[in-house]
């Protein structure tokens, strides 16, 4: 039996292939199912809507990929997005398109606070950012008193909502940021250091990696990306509201995890995150298009999340599941 010894390897490889291509397979499956159920689903205009809807999620999820790859978490992204949208609303009337500068600055500052709390204050990221989530949301409520702030500046709205060659500017921004994030994760020393912290923080420290500094940079990066996400969300809604971005952190984390980046750290993929974002967005969009009972939708979303992790998670590498 010349084949007998080769078989297990080939099977293992096949299983690995199934796991790795699972997010893509899931995406294709969703597209097939929804396009059968609704003729309007697979149209150019609907797909553009999906991309637009997904962009805010994507931009935040790119940053979250770094944080999760380092084995940390950030629950405050929804609140940072809300603050950034508010700052955008306040400054767009005078600055126009340049309102992106204060938006990024405020987001990065919020991320800096999170990063310093974690890296210098040694507060676990789950707790530090849970507190930050409430505080940042509180700041938004304090300034808006619960009332929406509208965005009316023509130049601002034109810049961020118009289309070039039929493609919305927000989608182009999302694409460019995806390429940048891909480059940082795969081609820079910083990306490798983030991954090493997630793979073994003690090893990283003793090998001379500046773990505290890398963690702070990583949260600043996520904060800055949330700043852009807040601006795009504000531009789309033409207003900043106190509720903007509420619950976004769960979608962001879900997108990263569904894309195959495990919460245990050390591994991460931008391509996976893009697929995860598309899956989460298509699922909502498709269920609305096909008229799935809105009261049923959360059950489906939660089930899909758990199923995706059930299949893709590499239990050999992680060992103990907590």
């Amino acid at each position, binding site marked *: 039996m010349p084949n007998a*010894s080769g078989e*297990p*390897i080939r099977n*293992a490889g096949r299983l690995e292939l199934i796991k790795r291509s699972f997010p893509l397979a899931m995406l294709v499956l969703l597209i097939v199912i929804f396009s059968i159920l609704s003729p309007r689903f697979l149209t150019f205009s609907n797909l553009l809507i999906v991309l637009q809807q997904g962009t805010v999620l994507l931009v935040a999820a790119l940053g979250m990929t770094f944080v999760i790859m380092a084995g940390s978490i950030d629950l405050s992204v929804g609140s940072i997005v809300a603050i950034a949208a508010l700052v955008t609303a306040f400054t767009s009337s005078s600055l126009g398109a340049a309102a992106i500068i204060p938006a990024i600055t405020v987001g990065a500052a919020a991320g800096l606070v999170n990063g310093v709390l974690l890296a210098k204050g040694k507060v676990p990221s789950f707790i530090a950012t849970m507190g930050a989530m409430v505080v940042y949301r509180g700041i938004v409520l304090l300034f808006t008193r619960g009332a929406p702030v509208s965005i009316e500046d023509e130049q601002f709205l034109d810049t961020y909502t118009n289309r070039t060659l039929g493609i919305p500017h927000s989608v182009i921004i999302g694409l460019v940021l995806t390429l940048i994030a891909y480059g940082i994760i795969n*081609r*820079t*020393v*910083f*990306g*490798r250091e983030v*991954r*090493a912290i997630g*793979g*073994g923080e*003690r*090893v*990283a*420290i*003793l*090998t*001379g*990696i*500046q773990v505290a500094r890398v963690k702070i940079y990583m949260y600043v990066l996520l904060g800055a990306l949330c700043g852009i996400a807040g601006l795009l969300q504000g531009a789309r809604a033409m207003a900043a509201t106190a509720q903007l971005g509420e619950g976004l952190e769960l979608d962001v984390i879900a997108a990263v995890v569904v894309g195959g980046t495990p919460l245990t750290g*050390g*591994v991460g993929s931008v391509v996976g995150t893009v697929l995860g974002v598309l899956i989460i967005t298509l699922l909502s969009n498709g269920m609305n298009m096909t008229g799935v009972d809105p009261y049923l939708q959360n059950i489906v979303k939660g089930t899909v999340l758990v199923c995706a992790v059930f299949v893709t998670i590499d239990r050999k*590498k992680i060992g103990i599941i907590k």
Partner: protein
Amino acid sequence: MTLTASNLHKSYGQTRAVNGVSIELRPGTVHAIVGENGAGKSTSLRMLAGAERPDAGEMTLNGARYAPPSVIGAATLGVSLVYQEITINRSLSVAENIFIDRLRMFAGSLGFIDRRRMESVAQAILERIGAQISVSSDTGRLNLGELKCIEIARALSTSPKILLLDESTAYLDHREVQAVLRVIGELKGQGMTIAFVSHHLDEVLAVAQELTILKDGQFVGTYRTSEIAPREIHHRMVGRELAKSIYPPRPAKDPGKTARGPIVLEVSDVAVGRELNNISLDVRAGEILGLAGLKGAGAKALFAAICGDLPLRHGSMKLAGGSYAPSSPTFAWRQGVAHLPGDRNNEGLIAEFSVLDNLVMARPPRHGPVFDRAAAITIAGDLVAQIGIKVQSVDASCRSLSGGNLQKVVIGKCLAVGPRLLLLNNPTRGVDVGARAEIYRIIRQWAAQGLAIILSSEDMPELIGMSDRLLVLRQGYVTHRIETAADATEHDIIGHMA
């Protein structure tokens, strides 16, 4: 009870871990299973213990067929296993740890546990094995040797007829090993049948009456320890004649020259935490300075201070003549101080990462912020060739490497930065004889090229064989300085350690 295994086979995927091993454990004997890393020792023992099922082969217990479905199944038949890893939960009491899976035994009528009865039974077992541990001790404060004795007590609490110990002394220091060997000796005196796996021949010869040698998963033979010479055992384990010594010869000394090279590191009156008090030493370029001492004697704290992981409480350091006060490991590495930590898996390298990722982790080649992968491949390839890391490709995951190869990767990571001072904490822990000789060769070779090396080890022959000078530490103080390590004896060193 007699436990026999004949012609056992066990494969994991492609790897044949055990390929035709036979062992007979005769009543009342202590039986050692020896061999190099990957010889199949642990796998064989685990099959006897019901932790693994053989793919093929027969096992009998007192003549009846023996096929335990699990470790618990084996224990009910009178065969009890002590794992290699420490499995004590430090937040539970000593007695709770011993009876962890059978606490119900001590439940009263209301379901509450009768602590007093449980503790008296636990204490009786500890006393029976001669372990000097009180059940009221705080498990968080016991040393690894004491924890190992508690595990042996746990295995004995099911009243087994046969006790199986898997590498029980692997993580222990000299004093702790002696405590465990004493317990084994005590049990031997009580007529217990014991089989144990060990890397250390001196331990084997101290307590075992019989030994089985395995090599590459295959059965070599079973011998009476009184009838086989240590050299012969080595020879049969390795399958080739070992050089007279696994330690490379020291470079011939020029009699006219007393000093080796310029002083690289000078430590003056340094104290660190509670572990290290007022130590002074220096190490020169091209020199290997050995540090002997029990765990907690101060070597680890000294390394932590030199590599910037712990602050000095007192004293000062000089590196290459200039003041040296490392504020972080980052600072130390940048100054050319490389550190090989004692805990390979949690501190030395990231096993999920590739060989290349680990090798260039300390100083990744870069163009500004961009990682220079082409340069990294060259660096990693050179290190793999120079150090003799056995790996198909530098992109292979470290998961697939043996202990010796993993340690070579950590050494490679240190050497990749072109260090001037190298701190080695137990560089051959859990490394088999063949890879050890290669690691010694690399260390000696780098010293000859002018690298200053401080070697801390719990392995006495290693310290004597590798060091130029030796310091013995006890409770944070230097108790003995040996100027020519080659002339030192183990007895000499141990006398100043304990």
